[in-house]
């Protein structure tokens, strides 16, 4: 695959991740904090997220296996997972955590087990997708290209769309 094709594949893939709700605006914010002096910032933060999430998921599984379930402890873990997924923009993981916390409050073990399964699933999806995204980036860099600055393109497009729809309604109003 040539460089232009790689870059196109990257943009398409990344766009789909946002459209499908795997990533949100916060992920874009992370990228904007990366620069020549901190070229691995995003990968570093995401790696921390992976480590942290795996630890929390194991703790959650263990806590839900207990004879007497400590819902406060479970809630604390889910709160942490919700926080870290929100911090990196892993929107679907964050959403499941919100539902998970509600079941904790209700002390509903069935609901909690279901959510644990869901959050495990969403986590593994976003992990795979982020790894693929980083792999694509590496391929582009290895081929001597630069990573398309996706966020600026979408912001520009959003701005143009907004302006044109506003002008239709306001230009001729009195």
């Amino acid at each position, binding site marked *: 695959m040539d460089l232009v094709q790689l870059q196109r594949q990257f943009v398409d893939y990344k766009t789909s991740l946002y459209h499908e709700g795997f990533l949100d605006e*916060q992920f874009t*914010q*992370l990228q*904007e*904090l990366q*620069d020549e002096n*901190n070229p691995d*910032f995003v990968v*570093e*933060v995401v790696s*921390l*997220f992976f480590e*942290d999430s795996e630890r929390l998921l194991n703790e959650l599984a263990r806590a839900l296996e207990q004879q007497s379930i400590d819902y406060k402890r479970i809630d604390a873990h889910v*709160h*942490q997972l*919700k*926080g*870290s997924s*929100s*911090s*990196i923009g892993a929107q679907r993981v964050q959403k499941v955590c919100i539902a998970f916390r509600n079941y904790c409050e209700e002390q509903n073990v069935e609901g909690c087990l279901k959510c644990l399964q869901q959050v495990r699933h969403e986590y593994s999806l976003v992990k795979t997708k982020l790894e693929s995204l980083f792999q694509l980036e590496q391929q582009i860099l290895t081929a001597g290209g630069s990573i398309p600055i996706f966020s600026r393109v979408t912001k520009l497009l959003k701005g143009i769309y907004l302006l044109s729809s506003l002008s239709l309604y306001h230009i001729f109003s009195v």
Partner: protein
Amino acid sequence: MGMAIDRDDTQFHVLAVDDSLIDRKLIERLLKTSSFQVTAVDSGSKALEFLGLNNNDADDEEEYEQRDSNTESVSSDEDQDLGLGVNLIITDYCMPGMTGYDLLKKIKKSSSFKDIPVVIMSSENIPSRINRCLEDGAEEFFLKPVQLSDVNKLRPHLMKGRSKDIDSSHKTTSTRLITSGN
């Protein structure tokens, strides 16, 4: 006109407190991007330790002063000028042990540190929590995830603290300049 900046005081020192490693990394990057010097710790007690205040000192400051009256005067403004001093504290609300609110209270009770601006961050949008923090002395309350636009709001609070050393006529000028600039 009003602001004669002769020393390198663009480097404000922020103490960031958060039990989450990811959030510490994030806040550190956000602050450094905005040219702040950062020290990040993972708990309220570590924050107090860094400030040179252990958990007990904050509560019986008076007793401490009587016992060793010399140290108190030495540790005030001079430390802050040395750059080891902290110009602003930004802390997470939900932390095990000492919450961000507990930390806020301890700092405001301390005669040496009560004037350091404190900002609270939280992932939960609870109006009563926000109001309580603001009423009890927090300068700002940021909802997580914290953005660069939030960090940009910190500078006026820091400039207020710095101009405290300049005489009052200059201070009013610089404050007016800052607020009109926003």
